[in-house]
């Protein structure tokens, strides 16, 4: 089953909100979302290899994920966990390392259960609008075609 994403850009508040309903209980969605062994399977674009360098899931703990391009070049993302409330809410900072400090994004992920399904909401709060633009270009601009291919693969798997 492939469901659509609910996507909102709130320009005034510099927020981007993504919502998606998953057909599983909240406890399971939380467990898998926060499992460092599974993150390489879903976090990054499929043409890049995702490695969990660090994932210290406690308030004040650091996380760092590395994406590797097919040509071997690497880019890293990192941040700090601020709030961890299983299985409801996760709040952490998000930095795209190549652009350096001062462009931190706050990411809030909430998990709500309705009739054995889970609504996952990811709210990204940007400090500056150009950061929002920067994030889009952080190696993802070629992703468009590939996204469609990957989507087609998924449809095949699920049909």
């Amino acid at each position, binding site marked *: 089953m*492939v469901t659509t*994403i609910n996507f909102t*850009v709130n320009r005034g508040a510099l927020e*981007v909100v993504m919502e998606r309903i998953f057909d*599983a209980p909240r406890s*399971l969605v939380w467990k*898998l979302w926060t499992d460092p062994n599974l993150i390489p*399977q879903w976090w990054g674009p499929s043409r890049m290899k995702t490695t969990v360098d660090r994932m210290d899931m406690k308030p004040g703990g650091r996380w760092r994920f590395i994406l590797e391009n097919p040509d071997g070049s690497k880019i890293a993302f990192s941040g700090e966990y601020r709030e961890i409330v299983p299985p409801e809410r996760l709040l952490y900072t998000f930095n795209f390392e190549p652009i350096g400090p001062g462009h931190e994004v706050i990411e809030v992920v909430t998990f709500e259960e309705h009739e054995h399904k889970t609504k996952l909401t990811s709210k990204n709060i940007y400090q500056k609008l150009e950061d929002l633009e920067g994030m889009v270009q952080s190696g993802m601009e070629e992703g*468009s075609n590939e996204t469609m291919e990957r989507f087609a693969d998924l449809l095949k798997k699920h049909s």
Partner: protein
Amino acid sequence: MDAFYALAEPNRRHIIEMLATRGQLTATDICRKFEVSAPAISQHLKVLREANLVQMEKRGQQRIYRINPEAMIQFEGWARQLMELWTQRFDAFDAVLMAEKQKMVKKRKKSIRNVQAKPKK
């Protein structure tokens, strides 16, 4: 001038939002909505014009502003890219979730079989 730099300033974003809802406004109308001084507003309008986000037309003494639709298409463009990135992420996560659920079902079936297969004492 870069559009994203232009939109990073809250008053300028507010002007864009006003123009988006009203269609077009005169410079005087825009100034009236702000507590910021008129020269400051004309400076903001200048930045927005140079970034190609708004268009200005002189009609007699009036300066009429409206949004440049092409610039808005560009904005929609990057919003769409971000959405694609997250759609891909959610789809991949969904695949992980479904695979784990299947494993759990198999495990449960196996344990039920094991219980049934146990000889009664």
